[in-house]
């Protein structure tokens, strides 16, 4: 053991090895998921039904309400729900339902033996997968744009913030769903809890409808919850309308939620892992 490690200082090259770990895991994810490109594609196409339904309903409402609903025209709505499809894909992270299987099958034991916190594997693997998803998403976006004629005029700042915001959204959702999933360490009856969480997320994130359409008390409530930072904010950052103040404030809020999520993961994980027992042969 080197002297630095004995003194409790970070070993030289710790950050470097973490970067290596991320790069290697991401490469594996890209290679593995590209193998399943057809399956990935079918899955993505199945996912399009949801935003297309929302889009058609709200475009119909906008038309009958004299052209726009809550200030959004059919073109704005089309832009919203097409960007939605990318943000939705960025929102796919390790599912809370996966924890039961991890614990039951004993996979946990393996990841506990590694010298890095297991969340790094999930973060890196799903981040790598995103690159495959983004490539597969581009043709879908083009086809949807040709059909629904989105209207958006983002400025340079908006595009830049959007590019950061989708990854921040990915991090926030990863962290919070990790915390939710760790409930499995205490009880196996988690189905109802997860469903309640996902319905709240659906309503308060901007996934079901742009938050502008929601009544004002819902918008107020959503401000104090992490959900809109993972969905509504990244979309609005690109599609608008958004003031530059709100643009940077939203980004700041995302960073805040990443901090909160990271602290929660650290705290819950410390307690959860103590409850884990495994039987080997």
């Amino acid at each position, binding site marked *: 053991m080197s002297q630095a490690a004995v003194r409790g200082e970070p070993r030289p090259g710790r950050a470097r090895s973490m970067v290596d770990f991320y790069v290697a895991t991401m490469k594996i994810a890209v290679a593995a998921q590209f193998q399943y490109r057809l399956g990935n594609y079918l899955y993505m196409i199945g996912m399009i039904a949801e935003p297309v*339904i929302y889009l058609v*309903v709200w475009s119909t409402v906008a038309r009958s309400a004299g052209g726009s609903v809550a200030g959004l025209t059919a073109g704005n709505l089309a832009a919203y729900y097409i960007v939605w499809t990318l943000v939705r894909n960025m929102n796919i992270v390790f599912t809370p339902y996966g924890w039961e299987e991890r614990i039951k099958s004993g996979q946990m034991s393996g990841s506990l033996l590694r010298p890095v916190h297991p969340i790094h594997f999930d973060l890196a693997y799903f981040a790598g997968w995103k690159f495959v998803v983004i490539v597969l998403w581009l043709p879908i976006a083009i086809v949807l744009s040709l059909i629904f004629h989105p209207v958006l005029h983002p400025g340079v700042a908006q595009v830049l913030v959007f590019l950061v915001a989708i990854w921040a959204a990915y991090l926030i959702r990863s962290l919070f769903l990790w915390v939710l999933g760790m409930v499995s360490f205490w009880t196996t009856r988690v189905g109802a809890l997860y469903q309640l969480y996902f319905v709240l997320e*659906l309503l308060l994130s901007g996934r079901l*409808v742009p938050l502008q359409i929601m009544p004002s008390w819902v918008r107020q409530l959503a401000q104090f919850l992490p959900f809109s930072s993972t969905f509504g904010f990244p979309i609005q950052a690109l599609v608008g309308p958004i003031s530059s103040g709100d643009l940077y404030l939203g980004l700041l809020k995302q960073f805040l939620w990443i901090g909160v999520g990271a602290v929660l993961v650290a705290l819950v994980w410390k307690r959860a892992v103590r409850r884990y027992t495994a039987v080997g042969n």
Partner: protein
Amino acid sequence: MRALRLIGLLVRMSVLQELQYRANFFLSVFQSLLSLGTGLVVLALVFGQVSSLDGWSPPELLLVMGVFTLIGGVVQAVIQPNMTRLMQDIQDGNFDFVLTKPVGAQLFASARAVQLWQCVDIVAGLVVIVVATVRLDGRVGIGPVLAFVALLIIAAIIIYCFWMLMTTTAFWVVQIDQIVELFDGVYQAGRWPIGIYPRWLRIGLTFVVPIGFAVTVPAEALTQRLSLGSWLLAVGLALVLCVVTRWYFRLGLRRYSGASS
């Protein structure tokens, strides 16, 4: 007659099996309430902006939601569990055991896995339909109600045939698990009358994935906006699908090579 007795027996077996897991009943109720709640929120949001959507009034859209929930319940409780089981069996060769039974393979494979607790959605759908009908203020006569019930049965047949056609494809392509999610995604379109969709999508939702016939058409019958043409089309489609499904299943059977070969 023998077929009916067999279905009764198979259903009883599934029910007994499901009764072992009573806690799941509460989970199903919770699930139903959440999804109904979400549906009502969306309706409230829509009607906060406009007073009618593409000519459908609030109680009429509530009715559509009821039919959507009801048919969704039938799919979840009866059709989907059987079809996923059949897909699995074809994949791993367990379909051999179905073939050795001295009863029709299609009948047996379609009635052996019923998920009792998913029937909660069927009940929930019925409740929503009744509430919506009451709110239509007595504009509903006995004729439309009979037509509605008949079309619900036709809807169930059409959806069953559609699922069976998809599943039978497993005899050739083996791995088609994705279609379950694909169908679930597309089925959500049925929450709304298909008239609101653009023309190309409407045609797709009518003839490619027959959700229009499953949800919108029965609702149209109850609200008296169904033309004679749609009636004939629904009955005709059901008949044609039945014949095609039967033929396709037998064709698939001939393809099946079993686990031991």
